[in-house]
């Protein structure tokens, strides 16, 4: 039995909003339960506003939950801030969406890489820190390393910056990586380099990864399992092949059918109407009910629970 590295129980994150003077809540992340195994790449798939980025930020302690438990490496981390706890920060690292914005524009690249190492006592000697950085850069085929390291962020391309930000995180040797839409701003031809580098390090460090994305093709390429979120709720969790080839939940089916996946076969749309709604004090029942072509009365009254369907597979729908 594989050990879990991260366990999330009943996690909730609400954002207060004022509407017509009344205080309401955007239920960005609402009652999530899942766990990630050691060494596993776990995808979080969803459209904008589904709560996938909020989830990543809460787990990384950049934001704090309303309620719920997060257990990481057998420690309960929910309820704590870990503002500058070296041991925690070293173990969990996050890669962000915008590579151009991930580096202090006033700092040389090597300073930006070195600073986290220095703060987290990864390598106490300045000289060997530099050596390690140069070595890792070479390994990632970012050459000539010395020249790249002595530039400013605006002098590098998006692909280079994103690979360097991966290196920056990996030099801390994290046990868990959160990648938040880390290739969505890059051209297709440079995505592969970034994804493969991420995979190389993940394998080498045997770390687990939470891979947040809206792109089902990228998700199925990189992830072992995928969790589909809609309006703050889990719709389905399954192995990535199953999500792509045999989606069960109506939302997943719609998502897969509307994705511009390139294939020789004609595919049929699983038609749904309407657009994503922000979950501001949502009505009871299934969050997807208002758009679901299969919805019945029960869907608007009773919220479906996330139930086990076969091996490694869960879905939250009354009719699955």
């Amino acid at each position, binding site marked *: 039995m594989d050990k879990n590295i991260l366990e999330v129980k009943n996690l909730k994150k609400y954002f207060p909003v004022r509407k017509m003077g009344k205080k309401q809540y955007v239920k960005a992340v609402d009652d999530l339960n899942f766990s990630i195994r050691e060494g596993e790449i776990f995808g979080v798939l969803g459209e904008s506003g589904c709560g996938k980025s909020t989830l990543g930020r809460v787990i990384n302690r950049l934001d704090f939950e309303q309620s719920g438990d997060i257990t990481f490496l057998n420690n309960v981390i929910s309820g704590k801030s870990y503002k500058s706890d070296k041991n925690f*920060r070293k173990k969990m690292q996050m890669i962000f969406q915008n590579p151009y914005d991930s580096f202090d524009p006033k700092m040389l690249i090597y300073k930006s890489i070195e600073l986290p190492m220095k703060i987290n006592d990864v390598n106490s000697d300045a000289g060997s820190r530099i050596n390690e950085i140069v070595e890792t850069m070479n390994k990632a085929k970012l050459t000539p390393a010395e020249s790249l390291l002595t530039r400013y962020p605006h002098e590098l391309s998006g692909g280079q910056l994103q690979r360097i930000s991966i290196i920056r995180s990996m030099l801390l040797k994290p046990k868990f990586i959160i990648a938040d839409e880390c290739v969505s701003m890059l051209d297709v031809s440079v995505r592969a380099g970034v994804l493969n580098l991420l995979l190389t390090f993940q394998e080498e460090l045997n770390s687990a990864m939470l891979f947040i994305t809206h792109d089902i093709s990228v998700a199925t390429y990189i992830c072992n399992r995928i969790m589909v979120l809609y309006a703050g709720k889990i719709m389905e969790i399954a192995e990535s092949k199953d999500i792509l080839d045999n989606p069960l939940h109506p939302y997943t089916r719609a998502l897969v059918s509307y994705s511009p996946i390139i294939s020789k076969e004609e595919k049929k749309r699983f038609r749904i109407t309407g657009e994503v709604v922000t979950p501001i004090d949502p009505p009871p029942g299934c969050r997807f009910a208002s758009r679901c072509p299969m919805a019945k009365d029960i869907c608007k009254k009773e919220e479906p629970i996330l139930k086990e369907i076969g091996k490694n597979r869960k879905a939250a729908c009354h009719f699955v």
Partner: protein
Amino acid sequence: MTAENRISLSRHENKLTKSVKMYLRDIKGVIGLFILLVFIVMAIFAPVIAPYSPDTMTDDVLQSPSLNHLFGTDHLGRDLFSRVIFGTRISLSVGFVAAGLSAIIGVFIGSFSGYYGGATDDIISKVIDTFLMIPAFFLILIIVSIFGSNIMYIMLVIGLTTWPRNARLMRAQALSIKEKTFITVARSTGESNMRILFGHVIPNGIFPVIANSALQMGGAILTEASLSFIGLGDPNLTSWGKLIYQGRPYMTYAPWTIVIPGIFVVLAVLAFSFIGDGLQFTFNPKNKGEK
């Protein structure tokens, strides 16, 4: 180790040269910088440049400008050229100290307020707004009339009443910088708030404050000159404003006693304003694209 040294030196120089080149393209900025340099040289080497001691009285009172006395003499027979040169010291120091103080306070308060946000920001913003409403010149008048005119008070009060503008600039910068991903990266790699504030937020947001400080230096010199002109300057020190004040009774038949120091005040204000504009031009991201 060697790599590190090689790294930082060559690159930093490079970026600095770029900025300097950028600045030198702005002709007004160059003029301003030139005037300021002349003033600084005058202030530092005053005893060498001045042909007479500024306080030696002679019988040649109110002489018009001549080869002997380049700017003429005042009502006590003192050489005006030497007095203007020594006055540069006082006037420039007022500018630097007052604007420097204003910049330091402004940067700290502004960045703190913008970065922390929330209730901290609300309270500090209200304080900044309150300070902005205080008519600085009258506050100085009150302080001077209560505590007496001492150049230290004057510099302090100018500094303490002009920081809100800097604080506002810095706060706006901090508000936008803290939303950048690299700040989130810093947090997620375990940098402390103080480190983020001093290591990222301030270095990235300070340029508008620097440009504004150049303008404020000119402003401080002008304020001090105004105070001196109405007789509230430091009685023990001779600034340009003081020279104008002293020449005032004789202006009808010895106009040089007020015109010449007046020109210097105007030049200083102009120089600082040119420099301020030049700096803004240099650090304006819109001009970065055209290398």
